[in-house]
């Protein structure tokens, strides 16, 4: 009896697993289709991959997307880490909770609201829409995630080490670089990773603040998908799928090198649940 119900549950898991992956595999499968549609597989070809690499506009947009992701996650990680340290050292419980709720506003706000409000902000200030407005927006919505990834590591840190360092004559800079940063490095790396993927995946916010001249992959895929099916997008999605896979495997290894694996998955839950 027990054995049978166990099998049924595995079957259910497999079914959900299949459903979640089917559309992705479907895209990848047809990226090799000679026929040019997503219906009938007529023969194998690499031609669509060739098309992706010859499409200079697409390549430029891909490089821009990568540049935005790297720069925004670097800035967001720096500001977010310093922010987390700041929040950690606020000793009043109430004030700390208040800061954390403010930190989480952008995480719980729908993308449309963030996009629209940033658009108003840039317009009011008279900031031209383009690369910089997208970069600033990505930095802005990535900061809270970094804070949430770094904060638990700070709470695990042994405060006595800071006191000891100060007693031995370390200045603030030395305390920061020699004590605090080394003990929270895994959190910083996780934060960087999250910020990077947030930036790569974002569509809605970018769509609002991108203006005419500048585009990221998400926005470009959107405008091409509106015109219908083109297997070049399939080839592109296969490449992006590989990038995502690579990133997740990398992240998994960062996570594995820590003792407190459980904690990080918990964080992910909070992160995802407050998306």
């Amino acid at each position, binding site marked *: 009896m027990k054995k049978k119900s166990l099998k049924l549950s595995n079957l259910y898991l497999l079914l959900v697993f299949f459903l979640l992956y089917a559309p992705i595999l479907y895209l990848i499968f047809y990226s090799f289709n000679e026929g040019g549609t*997503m219906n009938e597989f007529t023969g194998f070809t690499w031609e669509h991959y060739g098309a992706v690499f010859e499409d200079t506009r697409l390549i430029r947009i891909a490089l821009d997307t990568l540049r935005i992701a790297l720069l925004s996650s670097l800035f967001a990680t720096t500001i977010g880490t310093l922010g987390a340290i700041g929040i950690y050292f606020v000793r009043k419980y109430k004030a700390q909770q208040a800061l954390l709720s403010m930190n989480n506003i952008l995480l719980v706000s*729908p993308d449309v609201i963030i996009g629209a409000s940033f658009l108003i902000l840039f317009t009011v200030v008279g900031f031209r829409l383009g690369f910089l407005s997208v970069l600033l927006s990505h930095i802005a919505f990535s900061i809270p995630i970094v804070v949430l990834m770094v904060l638990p590591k700070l709470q695990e840190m042994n405060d006595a080490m800071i006191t000891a360092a100060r007693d031995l004559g370390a200045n603030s800079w030395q305390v920061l670089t020699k004590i605090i940063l080394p003990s929270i490095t895994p959190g910083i790396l996780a934060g960087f990773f999250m910020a990077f993927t947030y930036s790569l995946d974002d569509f809605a916010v970018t769509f609002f603040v991108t203006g005419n001249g500048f585009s990221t992959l998400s926005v470009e895929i959107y405008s091409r998908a509106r015109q219908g099916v083109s297997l070049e997008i399939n080839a592109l999605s296969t490449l992006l799928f590989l990038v995502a896979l690579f990133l997740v495997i990398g992240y998994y290894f960062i996570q594995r090198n820590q003792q407190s694996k459980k904690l990080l998955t918990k964080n992910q839950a909070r992160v995802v649940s407050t998306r």
Partner: protein
Amino acid sequence: MNRQARKYFFIPYTLWLGFFVFIPMALIVYQSFFNIQGEFTLENFITYFTSSTYLSMTLNSIVFALLITVFTFLISYPTAYFLTQAKNKQLWLLLLILPTWINILLKAYAFIGLLSQDGSINEFLAFVGIGRQQLLFTNLSFLFVATYIEIPFMILPIFNAIDEISPSYISASKDLGANQWETFRRIIFPLSMSGVRSGVQAVFIPSLSLFMLTRLIGGNRVITLGTAIEQHFLVTQNWGMGSTIGVVLIVAMFITMRITREKKKGRHKE
């Protein structure tokens, strides 16, 4: 670190809080009081609350978001539960979460192919004798794809909640003579409610504001609050009305969070 240095390190973060959290939120509220001619007025709110178009759009959007949340829950809860029982559960979990790292646009695009007139699902329907149907650009396709996209976001918090339940509760329940169903109904389900709450939060609020899917998959038949905001900002350029709907969406967000809030257990006494 001394107080002085700490303050300097904190400056960039505070600047961010000011310029990218508070000012934008204030601006969207401020903007909602301006009509399309740029006059300061309550017109937008009056239009919104008296127009049957806006009100029925809002109701529609809420109904759709509710349906998406319910369907997502129905599929995710058993998944999360079975996942906690599985061998190698961490690996399974990772695999089920992996699709969330794939760009949402690509998933939507995959469904354009799958659901199209000559797509694989129609091929299948024709094969089993049901015949081809209009699948893309219907309410049903929108519901289906939105549910697909939200499933992992519901699985994760529920999984964590169930996984945290101490096994001794379950043994105790069995020792006292409860069968599997009773144990589930009286122990596991109530204790997993915190996960369900965060799952609902994670799915319901974004579902109210989906705008890309309504266009690519729903063919503009479904108008959510998000679609309306995007239309007003980027198409009709009526930012005042867009902001008004934005304010409504923010209020809806707070109400949702209030309803799904964790009940205070009185652990953090002050």
